[in-house]
């Protein structure tokens, strides 16, 4: 029985949160990797673009709530995602037309692209703050929990419970659906293949009649979908604060590079690698161990490798180690 309790403690406090957080990171990391693979630059506006899409979802959620629309037990935000995606794609295409396309035609070095994306980051951040303001917003409605700890305890008769928030379940399910559709698209359809061809070798792709404008357009469309969904899921799970999204960009970068930049599947797994590492290293194992050991051996300290303050630092250290040992990432992306 104690063994079961120990497993449940671990599951409740590490595995479930890590899966949800990892899914959010994975969506962002695929976004970074796609832009890197097709448009060939590190997009420093990633976090703020995700925030921008989420902002529309938040505003529309409030609007729908005032109209009385809703999905019952599910959050209204899910209903607003398609509209938010449309707005996001529109914004990205405008930015691409007025900013990025000029440098793409000139074939500027990636550093210049990176600096330009810093400019886009500033502008996006300003727009978000001017439109919605910097304050903290919760836009989750509907049922909050799928399983509550007390219910779980009653059901199983165990001392420890499992809490499954609906946002966590939604995050994991939606991510799996979106990512599988995306991989199907990239690997099985003609357009997806042409995108991968363009990413592998631009000149050869142009020779075989692939229209670069179309490839870029489709890339931004997919990027818009990923950014908005990733952002909304994070916002539902935690809360919507523009500033936090900028900070999330850093673990997202870490996930993309750890997974091998330019490799979408690597980025997907990289998100989970980063999330699990962050949570496993900073989790206090005292309760877990105390179930496994006999009473007189019970540990005094928290048995925590690093305090939770260093959550981000863990993922960045992983990135540094990966860059040192295997710069192309765990799952072999483009060689740096």
């Amino acid at each position, binding site marked *: 029985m104690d063994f079961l309790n120990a497993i449940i403690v671990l599951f409740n406090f590490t595995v479930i949160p890590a899966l949800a957080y990892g899914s959010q990171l994975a969506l962002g990391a695929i976004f970074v990797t796609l832009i890197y693979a097709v448009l060939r*630059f*590190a997009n420093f506006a990633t976090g703020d673009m995700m925030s921008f899409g989420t902002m529309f979802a938040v505003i529309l959620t409030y609007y729908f709530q005032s109209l009385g629309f809703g999905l019952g037990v599910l959050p209204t935000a899910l209903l607003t995602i398609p509209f938010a995606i449309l707005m996001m794609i529109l914004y990205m295409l405008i930015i691409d037309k007025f*900013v990025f396309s*000029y440098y793409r035609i000139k074939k500027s*070095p*990636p*550093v*210049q*692209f*990176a*600096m*330009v994306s*810093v*400019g*886009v*980051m*500033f*502008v*996006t*951040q*300003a*727009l978000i*703050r*001017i439109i919605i*303001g*910097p304050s903290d917003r919760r836009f989750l409605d509907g049922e909050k929990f799928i399983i509550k700890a007390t219910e779980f305890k009653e059901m199983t008769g165990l001392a420890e419970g499992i809490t499954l928030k609906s946002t966590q379940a939604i995050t994991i399910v939606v991510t799996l659906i979106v990512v599988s559709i995306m991989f199907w698209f990239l690997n099985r359809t003609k357009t997806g293949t042409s995108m991968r061809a363009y990413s592998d070798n631009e000149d050869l792709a142009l020779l075989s009649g692939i229209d670069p404008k179309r490839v870029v357009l489709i890339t931004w469309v997919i990027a818009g979908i990923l950014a908005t969904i990733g952002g909304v899921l994070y916002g539902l799970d935690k809360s919507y604060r523009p500033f936090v999204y*900028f900070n999330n960009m*850093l673990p997202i*970068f*870490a996930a993309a*590079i750890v997974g091998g930049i330019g490799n979408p599947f690597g980025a997907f797994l990289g998100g989970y690698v980063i999330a699990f590492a962050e949570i496993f290293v900073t989790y206090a194992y005292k309760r877990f161990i105390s179930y496994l050991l006999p009473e007189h051996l019970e540990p005094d*300290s928290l048995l925590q*490798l690093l*305090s939770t*303050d*260093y959550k*981000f*630092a863990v993922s*960045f*250290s992983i*990135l*540094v180690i990966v*860059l*040192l040992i295997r*710069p192309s990432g765990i799952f072999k992306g483009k060689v*740096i």
Partner: protein
Amino acid sequence: MRNYKNVIAAYSIMIFLIILVGIFQSWSIALTILNYCLISAVMTIGANIQWGYAGLINFGIMGYTALGGLAVVLVSVEPVKKAWQVGGLNILACIWIIVAIIFVVKFILNRFDKSKLRNYSIASVILGGIILLRVTAAPGIEAIESVDPARTGFLGGMGLPVLFSWIVGALLAGSLAFIIGKIALGLRADYLAIATLLIAEIIVSIIKHEEWLARGVKNVIGLKRPAPYEINLQTSEWFIDLVAKFNSSKLNLINSISDKQEALNQMVIDASSVYVKLCFTGLFLTVVIILLIVTQKALYSPWGRKMRAIRDNEEAASAMGKNIVKEHLLIFILGSAIVGLAGAMMVTNDGLFTPGSYRPMRYTFVIWVMVIVGGTGNNFGAILGGFVVWFLWVEAAPIALFLINLFTSHLPETNAVRVHLIESAPYFRFLVIGIGLLLIMRYRPQGIIPEKIIKQ
């Protein structure tokens, strides 16, 4: 000569703008802006050495700035004797453990060939070392943090003069850059940017959360100053006489003696803050001028030519027998050291150390915008960039507020759009900086004052 005309014109416009602020807002604000412009200029000189001379993209400026600030605390604050007594031994032991770990890892690296076993043994040494560190440090840290936690709760510094800390800040940042350079300089440009940004985040989070070191997010206030304090000035005879002399024409207009005394008191209070800021301006200006002379000399020396050759064509320079790895490392250290110096200057100017305020937006990206806008590869340009962008960063909000009021003056006071816009006036600074950067990148990618190539 024509080239210099541009420089002089650009700088005169900048000085004129700051004087305008002095006239319309107040001289104290103008001097605050000027001081920060000078600090930003030092930072941009550092970033420009890395980016303009050598083409190294370093997004870790925030980390070096924070380290420079930490140096001020470690050098100038009086040591907390009691904290040293209760926990000093543990901390010293930890330093020895870290040194031991480094030596063991080095030993393994040198002694054995590359193999899985070697990797695992290094990993286990580091992991074991970390666990040992935590076990050793935990009681010491707890004891140190419980020594009068409201005021101290940290080890304190060395109690040395604060100006000394500027040098220490540069040294600390330089040695950190040595480590980071060893790790990350082999990476391609945009990876280097990401890696340095993330390493800087790690450094800031260590400074933020290790409270025994510099109180972390609890901040250190009341740091020493290289300039006199306002309170002392206000009571000293010579200063009051000086103020009276300066404003004698104004004071003579006032008839009654009590009114005169009151006016004089107010003037002394205003003047003391201006005086202190002027002292800082003098110090900072000295630093900027010295740095400018040195970097200018370096840029046009054989060494500077070598750096530009490496920047423009690595392969060719390498074929000519230049050691690219070594030169990159050197320039990375030099630039970071200057940024560390700027960080120390900034904390000295503020008189407080607030680790929570180090954010990549303000300390990395804005500095980069300064370098790009001013002119990469040109020291005069970089300094001007520091001035222009900092000025915009501070003054964008008041200007935006003025424009909003102007354009919405036909709307009623309670109009929702108007109220919302006025509330969000501070955020227009991001918009101004972002659009400015995009426009410069597009239409004048070499910056306001472009790099000057002297044919020899």
